[in-house]
C-alpha cells in the first residue's frame, strides 16, 4: 500500500514520527560528537600519563636489577622480570622506526635506549647468576649509564609530550567551542528544515480536506454550482470526495424536484386565483342582476296571485314557473349544485320556452330514474339548453335532447339539437378561448356582435366550459361534437364518478 493511499491519521503520525526520529538522530549525532570531543580533551595528556607509568616501570626494573646484583634474591629477579615485561609491553607503543617528526623521533630514541638498557641489564643479571664479577662490574656500570641516559631522554620526551599535548589541548578546546557553536547552528537549521518539511507534508496531506472545506462552504452559501471531485483515491479522503459528489448530485436533483413542484403549485394557485376571480366576477354580475330578478320575481308572484284570483290557472302556473326559474338564479348559496338540481332548473326553463315556442320546440329528456347527486358548477346545463333551443330552432321545429348516461368512470351528459351545426373553426376557437380564458373573435351565431345580445356572444358558453374545467381540473370535461353539416350540435359533459 502506497503512502498516499494510507489514512490521513496514519500519514500524519508517520510524518511526525519521521520528524521526531530525524530530530532525535540529529541530536544524538551532535551529542555524540561533543562527547567525542570531550573525550579527546580528557585524553590530551594521556601520553604523559602513559610515559610516567612507563618510566615508573623502568625505575622498578632498574631497582630490581640493582637489588639482584647486590643481594641475589629470588624476589628481586622475579620483580626484575615482572617490571621488564611490563615495560617491554609498553615499549611496543613507541615509535619503531626513525621519524622526521621531533616527538616521534624522540620516542624512537627512547625505545632504542630502553632496548639497550634491557640488553645490558640482562647481561648484568646473567653475569650475576653466573657469579662472574668482572662481567657484572662491566655491564652493571654500562647499564646504569644507559639508564641514566634513558631517564634524561624520557624527561625530554615527557616535556615534548607536554608541549605537544598542551598545544593539542588548546586546539581541542577551541575546536570544542567551535563545534558547539556549529552544532547549535546545525540543530537549529536542521530543525527548521524538518519543521518546513513537516508543514509542507501536512499541507499536502490536508490539501484535499481544504478543497472539500471550500466546496462545503460554497454549498453552505447555497452555491450548488460546484465542481465534482471525481476522486479515485482510496482512504477516507476518497470516500469523503465520493460521498460529497453523491450529496451534491442528490441536492441538485432534490432542488430540481422542488422547483418542479413549486412551479406546479404556482400554476395551480394561479388557476385557483383565476377561478376565484371568475367566481367573484360572476357573483358581482349576479348581485347586479339580482335587483331586476327580485323585482321581476316579486312582480311575477303578484301576477300569479292576480291570475289565480281571476281564475286564469294556466297563466298562474306559467308565472309560478318563471318565478321559480328566477328564484334559482337568485338563491345561489353555493357555487355548486347537483345534477338533479340543474335538471329541475332546465325543466323550468324548457316550460317557459315551450309556452313561448309552442309546438315548434320539442324537448326530450332521457335521464336515469335514480338520483343524480354528482356535483357540478351551478348554471351549467341551463345555458347549454338555452343555446341548443336558440340555435336549434331554424324556423322549423327544433328538437333538443338531454341525455344522461353512466359508465364505470364517468357520468356523461349529452345536450344536443338538430340545428345547423357548429362550424369547426368556431368550435376550435371557443375551446381554445376557454383554455386561455378569453372571448372568441367570431360570435357563436355567426352574427355581428351588435346583432347579438349579451347571452348570444359565446361568453356564456366559454364561461360554462371554463368553470367546468376549473372545477374538475380536466381539460376534456367538456366537448362540442358536430353531428355534421345541418345535423345539429351535441354538448358533451363528462363528470368523473369519483
Amino acid at each position, binding site marked *: 500500500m502506497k503512502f498516499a493511499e494510507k489514512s490521513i491519521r496514519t500519514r500524519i503520525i508517520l510524518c511526525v514520527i519521521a520528524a521526531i526520529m530525524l530530530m532525535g538522530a540529529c541530536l544524538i549525532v551532535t551529542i555524540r560528537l561533543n562527547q567525542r570531543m570531550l573525550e579527546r580533551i580528557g585524553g590530551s595528556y594521556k601520553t604523559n600519563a602513559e610515559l610516567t607509568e612507563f618510566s615508573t616501570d623502568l625505575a622498578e626494573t632498574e631497582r630490581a636489577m640493582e637489588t639482584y646484583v647486590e643481594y641475589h634474591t629470588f624476589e628481586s629477579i622475579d620483580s626484575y622480570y615482572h617490571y621488564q615485561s611490563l615495560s617491554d609491553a609498553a615499549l611496543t607503543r613507541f615509535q619503531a622506526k626513525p621519524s*622526521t617528526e621531533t616527538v616521534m623521533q624522540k620516542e624512537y630514541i627512547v625505545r632504542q635506549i630502553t632496548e639497550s638498557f634491557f640488553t645490558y641489564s640482562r647481561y648484568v643479571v646473567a653475569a650475576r647468576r653466573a657469579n662472574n664479577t668482572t662481567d657484572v662490574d662491566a655491564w652493571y656500570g654500562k647499564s646504569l649509564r644507559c639508564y641514566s641516559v634513558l631517564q634524561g631522554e624520557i624527561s625530554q620526551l615527557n616535556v615534548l609530550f607536554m608541549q605537544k599535548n598542551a598545544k593539542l589541548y588548546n586546539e581541542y578546546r577551541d575546536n570544542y567551542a567551535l563545534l558547539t557553536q556549529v552544532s547549535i547552528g546545525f540543530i537549529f537549521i536542521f530543525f527548521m528544515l524538518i519543521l*518546513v518539511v513537516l508543514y509542507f507534508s501536512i499541507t499536502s496531506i490536508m490539501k484535499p480536506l481544504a478543497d472539500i472545506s471550500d466546496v462545503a462552504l460554497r454549498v453552505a452559501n447555497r452555491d450548488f454550482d460546484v465542481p465534482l471531485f471525481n476522486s479515485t483515491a482510496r482512504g477516507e479522503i476518497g470516500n469523503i470526495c465520493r460521498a460529497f459528489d453523491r450529496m451534491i448530485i442528490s441536492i441538485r436533483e432534490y432542488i430540481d424536484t422542488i422547483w418542479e413542484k413549486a412551479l406546479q403549485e404556482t400554476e395551480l394557485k394561479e388557476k385557483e386565483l383565476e377561478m376565484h376571480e371568475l367566481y367573484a366576477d360572476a357573483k358581482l354580475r349576479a348581485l347586479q342582476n339580482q335587483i331586476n330578478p327580485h323585482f321581476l320575481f316579486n312582480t311575477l308572484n303578484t301576477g300569479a296571485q292576480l291570475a289565480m284570483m281571476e281564475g286564469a290557472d294556466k297563466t298562474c302556473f306559467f308565472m309560478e314557473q318563471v318565478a321559480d326559474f328566477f328564484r334559482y338564479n337568485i338563491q345561489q348559496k353555493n357555487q355548486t349544485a347537483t345534477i338533479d338540481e340543474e335538471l329541475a332548473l332546465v325543466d323550468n326553463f324548457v316550460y317557459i320556452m315551450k309556452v313561448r315556442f309552442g309546438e315548434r320546440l320539442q324537448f326530450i329528456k332521457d335521464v336515469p330514474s335514480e338520483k343524480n347527486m354528482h356535483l357540478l358548477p351551478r348554471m351549467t346545463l341551463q345555458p347549454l339548453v338555452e343555446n341548443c333551443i336558440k340555435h336549434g330552432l331554424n324556423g322549423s321545429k327544433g328538437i333538443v335532447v338531454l341525455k344522461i348516461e353512466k359508465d364505470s368512470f364517468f357520468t356523461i351528459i349529452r345536450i344536443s339539437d338538430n340545428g345547423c351545426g357548429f362550424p369547426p373553426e368556431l368550435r376550435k376557437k371557443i375551446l381554445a378561448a376557454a383554455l386561455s380564458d378569453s372571448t372568441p373573435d367570431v360570435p357563436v351565431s355567426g352574427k355581428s356582435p351588435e346583432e347579438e345580445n349579451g347571452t348570444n356572444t359565446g361568453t356564456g358558453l366559454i364561461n360554462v366550459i371554463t368553470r367546468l374545467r376549473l372545477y374538475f381540473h380536466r381539460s376534456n370535461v367538456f366537448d362540442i361534437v358536430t353531428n355534421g353539416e345541418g345535423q345539429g350540435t351535441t354538448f358533451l359533459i363528462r363528470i368523473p364518478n369519483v
Partner: protein
Amino acid sequence: MKFTVGHSARIITICISIVMVMFFFFFLFYLVPHITDTNMNESNTAENRKFHIIVVGKAENESFLQQIYAGAQQVSKKYDAVVEVHVPESRAENASLQSLLEYASFTNPDGIIAYIGESDSKIDPPVDIRGKLIPLITVVQYHPDIPQVSFIGTNYSELGRKIAVESSNYLHGRGSLLIINTSISNNPNYSTLMNSLSNSLEEYSGIRTTISDLGFSHASSSLEGNVKNEIASNTIDLIVCLTTEDTIRAAQSLSDMNRGGKTGIIGFGEGDMVDMYFNRGIITELLSIDPQKIGETAMSELFEYLRYGYANSYIAADVRIKKAGDRR
C-alpha cells in the same frame, strides 16, 4: 499534468528533504572532520625512515656540528635516513667525547658522524647492543686509534697555498705580511699548513713576511700585545691567522688600535664572533672548510659503506673563502 497546490507542496517537501540530507552529510562528513581536525602539521607531514644517523661532538664545536648536521640533513631523504645532532647545550656539562659516543651507541644508530678534536684521545669505538661496531665517520681530526670508516678533514698543504694566493691578491703582489703562529708546535697538520704557506709566499718577492711565532702556552693578552707591537713598530698591511682564536684576537687588536680597514686580516675558522668582525669589515677575508659539504660527504661515505661495505678512508674537505665583498 495538472499542477496543483498539493503537487507543489510535495515537490517542495522532496526538495527540502534532499537539501536536509545533503546538509546532514555536509555537516557530518565535511564540517565536523574539518573542525575536529587538529593542525598538527608536523605530525601530518612526518614520515618514517629506514636509517638513523647521529652527529655527535662537544659543545665548543656546536656551531660547526650544526652546519655538518644541516648538510647531512639536506641529503637525508635521498638515503631514507633521519639525521640527529647530539651536542651538549653548554660546555658546563663537560661531557667527554667518549660519553657522547656512548650515548650514540645506546641509540643503536646505523651510523655516527663525530667531530673529534686534537685533545680527544683513548676513545673506545662505539658498538651496538649486539656488540657490533657502529660505522663511524670522523671529521676535522683524524684519530688513528679509532676504527673509523672515513675521515673528512682539511688538506692543509692545499690550504697553505690558498692562503698565500689570497694574501698576494689582497696585497697586489707587494706589501708587508704578518703571520700569527700560535698553534701546537708538534701538531703535524699545523706544521704542514705553515710549511705550505711559507713556501708559497716565497714565490712572491714583493711581499715581506713576518711570522709572529708564539707558543701554545702564551696567554691571549700576550698575543694581543705582541700583535699590537708588531703593527706599531712595522708597517703591516695584512695579518694572516691560521686558527679561529687567532683570527678573533687579531681582529680585537686592530679594533682597539682603530686600524680596522687599514690593515687587512685573512682569517681562518667559523663562529659567531668571527662572523661579527667579518661583517664589521675588520676581517677582510675568511677561509674555512665547508661544514655543510662535509655533512653531505659524510652521509655519502656512510651509505656507501652501509651498502657496499667499503668507503674512502680519507676525504679532503673543500675550503670556502668569504671576502669582504660577499658580505650581506
